[in-house]
């Protein structure tokens, strides 16, 4: 009895101190994050949480954050516009409150170390936002950060602490997706991002400063070099790659490249049909005809009707059909080599197995902004018109390349 108990205690002793080096091994903490931990090794499992949480830093931008245009108060009591504070910078943002005992002190330690570590990186700004702005007056923020600053107590210039009106703080936290009703539930997440390009990622604030340094480096690498030019002439390589430049032939026998001639720089209203269709096609085409008539002069507007039966619908059939609906110059009825038409239908979302199954939807798109909408072709004319106008008026910035 006594012998066996003693043996158990020796076993425990051997496990504890016999063969493994005491204290957590730094190599484990820095092991490749993408490799899942082996469940049978308890030591490794210890470190799996922070690593998994920090994974997005390696995986690249995980979220899009738009900081609200609010004026907050810094630790010196001065008003600070949040977007201007982070303009042109890589921001590392944590949320804290000064009376928090459990997770905020280690987060403060990490920011103190990080501030010293990135001192020479002038494009990096550290921001701690109080989630308890009523209690956390600037004096409290100064005292709090002073404890963690190195050498302290003066707070390094690249570390800004913010408080403010509750409503503005709530807006900011919501934008950062860390708002919680109870302050004790607050997140240890740190948002790392480049405000100008909207490139953001999230890292566990309890992981060590080097993880945060790596996240900053990853964001810096992910910043698009120059925003895509606004002017139309620059071809959008991605769009060209997607749509391709297959050749289609219109009712006049003229050839058009799909992307370069028909889509690029244009707003298009696209439908699919076939000339021998007796069901939905005549009323649908009629609707498009009246839609076309109700839209004024615009040289960037094209109506494209693609046949789903390119073998039957040769140039003559298309010409006759176009004449029936008095189509003018900006309305093209398109056929061509069956495999080309097949590709075009597929790319525009009209591909079908049998011609009778063709879609009764209209696709309205603006290549310049990348906005594409679908509408039911038999909808009320006003509704259809409204959708077309919404695409015509779209002012969104061009999509960045890639």
């Amino acid at each position, binding site marked *: 009895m006594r012998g066996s108990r003693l*043996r158990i205690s020796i076993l425990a002793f051997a496990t504890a101190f016999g063969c493994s080096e005491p204290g*957590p091994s730094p190599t484990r903490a820095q092991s490749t994050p993408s490799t899942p931990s082996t469940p049978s090794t308890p030591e490794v499992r210890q470190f799996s949480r922070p690593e998994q949480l920090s994974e997005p830093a390696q995986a690249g931008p995980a979220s899009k954050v738009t900081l609200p245009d609010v004026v907050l108060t810094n630790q010196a009591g001065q008003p600070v516009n949040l977007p201007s504070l982070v303009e042109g910078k890589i921001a590392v943002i944590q949320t804290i409150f000064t009376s928090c005992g459990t997770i905020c002190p*280690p987060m403060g330690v990490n920011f103190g170390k990080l501030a010293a570590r990135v001192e020479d990186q002038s494009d990096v700004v550290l921001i701690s936002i109080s989630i308890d702005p009523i209690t956390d007056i600037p004096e409290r923020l100064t005292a709090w950060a002073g404890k963690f600053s190195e050498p302290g107590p003066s707070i390094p210039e690249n570390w800004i602490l913010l408080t403010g009106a509750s409503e503005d703080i709530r807006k900011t936290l919501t934008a950062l997706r860390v708002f919680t009703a109870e302050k004790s539930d*607050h997140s*240890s997440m740190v948002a790392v991002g480049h405000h100008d390009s909207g490139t953001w990622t999230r890292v566990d604030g309890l992981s060590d400063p080097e993880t945060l340094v790596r996240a900053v480096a990853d964001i810096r690498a992910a910043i698009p070099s120059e925003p895509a030019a606004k002017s139309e002439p620059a071809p959008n390589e991605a769009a060209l790659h997607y749509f391709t430049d297959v050749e289609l032939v219109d009712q006049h026998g003229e050839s058009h490249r799909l992307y370069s001639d028909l889509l690029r720089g244009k707003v298009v209203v696209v439908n699919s049909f076939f000339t021998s269709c007796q069901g939905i096609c005549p009323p649908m085409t009629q609707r498009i005809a009246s839609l076309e008539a109700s839209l004024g002069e615009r040289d960037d507007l094209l109506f494209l009707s693609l046949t789903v039966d390119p073998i039957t619908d040769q140039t003559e059939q298309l010409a006759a059909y176009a004449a029936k609906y008095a189509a003018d110059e900006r309305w093209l009825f398109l056929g061509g080599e069956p495999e080309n038409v097949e590709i075009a239908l597929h790319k525009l979302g009209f591909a079908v197995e049998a011609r009778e199954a063709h879609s009764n939807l209209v696709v309205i798109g603006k290549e310049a902004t990348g906005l594409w909408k679908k509408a039911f072709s038999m909808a009320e004319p006003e509704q259809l018109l409204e959708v077309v106008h919404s695409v015509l008026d779209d002012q969104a910035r061009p999509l960045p390349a890639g």
Partner: protein
Amino acid sequence: MPTIEFIASVGWLVMGITVVASACTTEPGPPEVQSAELAAPPRDAAAIQRGRQIYMTGKSPSGGKIEAVLAGEVVANAATLPCVGCHGEDGRGRPEGGMAPSTITWEQLGKPYGGRGRDGREHAPYTPDRLGKAIAMGIDPSGNQLLATMPRHRMSLADMDSLVAYLETLGEHDVIGIDEQVITLATILPTLAPLPESAETSSAAEAVLLAYFAEINARGGVFGRRLELEVIRLPRDLGPTRQVELLAAAWVERPSFAVLAPQLGAAEPELLRWLADAGVPVIGPVSSYPSPGTPPMASVFWVDGGIPAQARTLAEFALKPDAPGRRRGVVVFPDRPPERALAEAVLAIWKPGLIESPGRGPGLIESPGRAPGLIEGLAVAVAIGEDPSSADSLAAELLESKPDIVLYLGPAELGLAALTGFANADSRAEPAQILLPGSLAIGDPFSLPDRLDGRIFAAYPWLPDDLDPAALRDYQTLADRHDLPATGRPTQLATLTSAKLLLEGLMRAGRSVTRPTLVSTLDSLREFETGLTPALSFSPNQHIGLHAPRIVRFDLAATRLDVVDLDPE
């Protein structure tokens, strides 16, 4: 057969030991024997006290270094993340932000059948040595790594022994100054001998507290606990450092849960700082110059803002433009640090951005009032204990300054004489406005020259119409029943107000009250009616319960006080 088996198992054992001993260079020596089987060693009260300090503050009592090593080998000063932050004063853990710190009461850790962490892993029971290893190396008794959020700690062996000694008591007796039967509350009063003038108020304060506690105890106490009073007397003639030492010594002897209505005199800042650093709640110091600081000392709560609050209210009142154009204001103050700071604060209210003027000698601060509508400020210092005969020179100085406003913070006798001399000699059609903080009790302002009729204003923390007659009757009943002294009545009422405030805090915090829960309860106390003052409200950044002193005007002709409405809207 059994014999062979026994031998075999012993042989295995010996082998095991050999293997362990040869493989392991970090921890030589024989395996530990479970200390649960040994008699508990005698406890070292001083070590427990030192350990508690480490637990609460992360600072070494011997001044040594204590470091916390976080994930990624990040080394931090342990004072920035003391044990209590996560594990709580009671050792039961404060879950926050997705972290659930372990319960580390000794009852839990020392269970003879081991325990199970929040991650579900089982571990052998803790012994004091194993607890030390967990704190230093982050390894539980079964050799498992603790969660990475628990830092490893580097400290001297002596500090570790103290900390472990304290942890062995953690959870047994959670709250200092409170047991099943009694809540011990201290008050700090001046010694009776050297300064007889304070003896009267001092003994009156003690008497009113004893009477009030007796009433509460007769009604069953607070959640079944009796209130007991511990009186600590400090000699006022000693310096602040010495007084702090005496307080610390008395505190080790018999610590109380909280301090109630102390009268601390000139050493107030130092004594309160010591108590606040020790986390002791201090409720309602009876004080003329409260200095909570920004942000306020976390555990100290004042009832009213004293002379500073009254002087600021008067300074702001003087800014209200019933007299257009530029005016000159003079602050007269005794040359001591709190009064000097207040004089500077008043000048800052009148004219932000004051300038120290070296040409006018010590005690003179001048601010050039350039903007119209602001008050050009001047501060005149008077020496402490200046005898009333110097009233003539003060009156002459005032006359020369030609002030439109005089805010007087000096001693009463000197003030009456100097202001009388100044007013009589001042030939201007519009004599100066005289502003007096009521708590300075400047003798009898009605004796000032008639020229000043309608131009003397005083600020008080409250006026008689703010008080509840029922509360005053209650005080009278208490005074009659307990034969309270007829003297020092204002001090008695102030002390009683503090006691009512503390009782409210204890009632609201509940039977399981701790110092932190009492503080957070008072931090969120709003509109508490004491009956002896206007309603008190506190917040984490506002540790003075009364925010708006009242102002009265002296009607010298009718010997009457007229209340000034500060917010006519």
